[in-house]
């Protein structure tokens, strides 16, 4: 724990840690080459595109081992100063990269999973004429994401934050000639912008309150006296708003399902494994701020719990395989949010779920991509069925991911999700029990929709049209899937074993809660959870697996199902609250500008012109009228002279 006068300081990087900047530079340079090089690089572009994240991964691994080889006496938080970015009076922003346990964890996830997905994409995008651009943008994403997790201050983090948003925008809209893709890309960017407003307000609040926005400065200053809890709550809530935007948490969740318009590797890398978890990273990184503001933590927990449930419900209703997975991502991130919201000591568990989820969800997305690849890019699960025989490798790897996500022992999801449920219940009080119950119910729902997905895709009878010939994907796609499947199985062990991850992350996010303070024994809880999960599986089999899947979704369904199919009315709410009034407001303002503001200006001009024209009418051209007015004028002048003389 932080002590009141404990200042957070980072050691200056030396030796191998001076290579940290290369982590970002490799993919950034590769992206620049691929995007600026044009068609000349078409031939070897994808190779460079794969090499860049791999190179970063290698450096990441080297630095990881260098980091764990530093013993307790040495700081495991190493800051590398690159250049001074914005120096204005007190506002001093550096471009510094911070290598600490939390960031290296993310670096390994991003570059590791990222490399695999890059390799997979070589096969997946083989027939696309713009494959080089795809790799360029994917590299751009990796660079931005690495910058996000390596930044040592919030402003630089913000650069990465928007950078991944840009990459996400570009990649969702990769097939921008499809109107749906263009709209989805725009929607993702806009919703993220709303979240970004939160992040920028948070940074401004930090600057106005502490005079700094570097991690070390802020984390030191939060414990100073004179820090008002209201301010901390505001900062926490604003950070949460940012996190909600990026991580598709309620109320900013609506963009994620549409984002599935992007190519499937993009969904795997950006909208499952890495970018959408940036919100979790942000909250975990800002642990020091949430530590001092219980109300902000509660808000994080509520957001997590609500989204967890919403995602699970939405996942149950959709027929689009990618959308089901996207809803599941929302739901799983809800778990992570719930975990990091639980406060001191649970951050590490949230991160652990993030890592395991990174493996199994990426794995399943790649699997879904493989299924689509073999089915003429069909995404509707009602057109699948019985694919396990035609696509055995995909089926097996997908199955690993499936078992991991529903949390079957010994797959990775079991370890991380169980811990979250456990921590929620350990929080105690009414909220703790509620969140625990929600988490357990969520596990059941997860089991239900994932089983439904498995059944509709891989089991049953074939339902695809006659001209479709499902086939297994090429090796270059299967190998990454296999590696990720292995990760889905093993990651849990490696991370949980002896609390290794939690210990490792302690310098960054604080130590874990003390053992032995459980309200329910972990064993009992595991059994309960497993039972609920199996109940979910059974329910799915009962409702979906027993009878043939209809080709069209049934129309006579309950209102709740209809709402779930419409993603719990997320878009409808946005449209009726923001879009339609906004469109009216815009139209009214354009009208007002043309008629009101400009009308006033032009009206003034017309008034002058008009009165001149009217005045002109007195020039009748009749000499006698002029003579009359002259005489009248002479009379008036004479009278006034006389009056002046007399008066």
């Amino acid at each position: 724990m932080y002590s009141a006068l404990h200042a957070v300081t980072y050691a200056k990087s030396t030796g191998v840690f001076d290579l940290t900047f290369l982590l970002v530079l490799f993919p950034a340079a590769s992206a620049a080459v691929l995007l600026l090089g044009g068609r000349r690089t078409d031939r070897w572009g994808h190779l460079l595109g794969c090499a860049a994240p791999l190179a970063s991964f290698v450096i990441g691994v080297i630095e990881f081992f260098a980091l764990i080889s530093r013993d307790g006496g040495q700081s495991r938080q190493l800051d590398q100063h690159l250049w001074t970015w914005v120096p204005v009076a007190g506002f001093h922003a550096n471009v510094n990269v911070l290598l600490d346990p939390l960031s290296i964890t993310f670096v390994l996830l991003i570059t590791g999973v990222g490399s695999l997905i890059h390799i997979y994409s070589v096969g997946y995008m083989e027939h696309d004429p713009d494959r080089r651009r795809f790799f360029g943008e994917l590299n751009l994403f990796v660079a931005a994401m690495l910058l996000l997790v390596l930044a040592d201050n919030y402003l630089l983090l913000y650069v990465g934050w928007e950078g991944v948003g840009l990459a996400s925008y570009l990649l969702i809209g990769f097939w921008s000639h499809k109107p749906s893709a263009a709209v989805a890309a725009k929607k993702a960017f806009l919703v993220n912008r709303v979240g970004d407003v939160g992040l920028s307000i948070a940074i401004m609040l930090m600057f106005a309150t502490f005079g700094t926005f570097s991690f070390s400065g802020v984390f030191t200053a939060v414990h100073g006296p004179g820090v008002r809890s209201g301010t901390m709550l505001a900062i926490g809530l604003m950070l949460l708003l940012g996190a909600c935007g990026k991580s598709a948490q309620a109320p900013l969740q609506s963009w994620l399902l549409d984002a599935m318009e992007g190519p499937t590797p993009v969904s795997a890398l950006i909208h499952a494994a890495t970018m959408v978890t940036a919100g979790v990273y942000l909250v975990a990184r800002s642990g020091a701020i949430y530590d001092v503001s219980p109300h902000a933590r509660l808000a994080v927990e509520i957001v997590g719990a609500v989204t967890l449930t919403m995602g699970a419900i939405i996942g149950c209703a959709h027929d689009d395989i990618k959308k089901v997975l996207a809803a599941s991502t929302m739901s799983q991130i809800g778990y992570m949010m719930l975990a990091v919201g639980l406060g001191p000591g649970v951050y590490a568990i949230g991160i652990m779920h993030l890592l395991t989820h990174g493996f199994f969800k990426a794995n399943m997305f790649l699997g879904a991509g493989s299924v689509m690849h073999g089915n003429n890019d069909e995404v509707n699960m009602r057109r699948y069925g019985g694919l396990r025989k035609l696509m055995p490798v995909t089926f097996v790897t997908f199955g690993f991911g499936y078992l991991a996500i529903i949390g079957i022992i010994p797959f990775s999801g079991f370890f991380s999700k169980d811990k979250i449920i456990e921590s929620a219940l350990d929080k105690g009080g009414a909220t703790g029990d509620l969140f625990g119950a929600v988490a357990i119910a969520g596990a059941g729902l997860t089991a239900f929709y994932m089983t439904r997905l498995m059944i509709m895709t891989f089991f049953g009878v074939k339902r695809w049209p006659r001209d479709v010939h499902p086939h297994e994907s090429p090796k270059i796609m299967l190998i990454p899937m296999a590696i990720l499947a292995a990760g889905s199985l093993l990651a849990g062990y490696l991370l949980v074993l002896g609390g290794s991850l939690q210990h490792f992350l302690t310098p960054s996010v604080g130590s874990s809660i003390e053992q032995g303070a459980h309200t329910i024994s972990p064993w009992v809880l595991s059994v309960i959870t497993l039972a609920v999960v199996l109940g979910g599986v059974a329910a799915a089999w009962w409702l979906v697996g027993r009878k043939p899947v209809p080709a069209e979704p049934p129309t006579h369904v309950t209102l709740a199902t209809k709402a779930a199919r419409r993603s719990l009315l997320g878009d409808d709410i946005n449209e009726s609250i923001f879009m339609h009034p906004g469109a009216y407001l815009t139209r009214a303002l354009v009208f007002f500008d043309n008629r009101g503001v400009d009308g006033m200006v032009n009206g003034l001009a017309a008034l002058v012109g008009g009165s001149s024209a009217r005045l002109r009418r007195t020039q009748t051209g009749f000499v006698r009228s002029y003579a009359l007015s002259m005489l009248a004028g002479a009379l008036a002048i004479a009278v006034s002279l006389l009056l002046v003389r007399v008066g």
Partner: protein
Amino acid sequence: MRVDYYLYLSAVLFTIGAVGVLVRRNAIVVFMCVELMLNAVNLSLVTFARLNGSLDGQIIAFFVMVVAAAEVVVGLAIIMSIFRSRRSASVDDANLLKY
């Protein structure tokens, strides 16, 4: 009889001339009215000379006559040329300056 009766007479004649300018439309008659006004002023100038005991007023009246003669020459020539082009001597018809 007081000398200033001439001035009253002059004023009356001037006003009649002015009204004539305003109400008549025949350009030549208008011109005559202008001459009447000039004559009225001349009368008052001569009277002023008598009142002041100096010849300057008479001199000015003389100049007025000369200038009036010049003015009549030019003015009538203008009326002639207008009449030639428009077959009308009405001042109301010459309204090219209308807005």
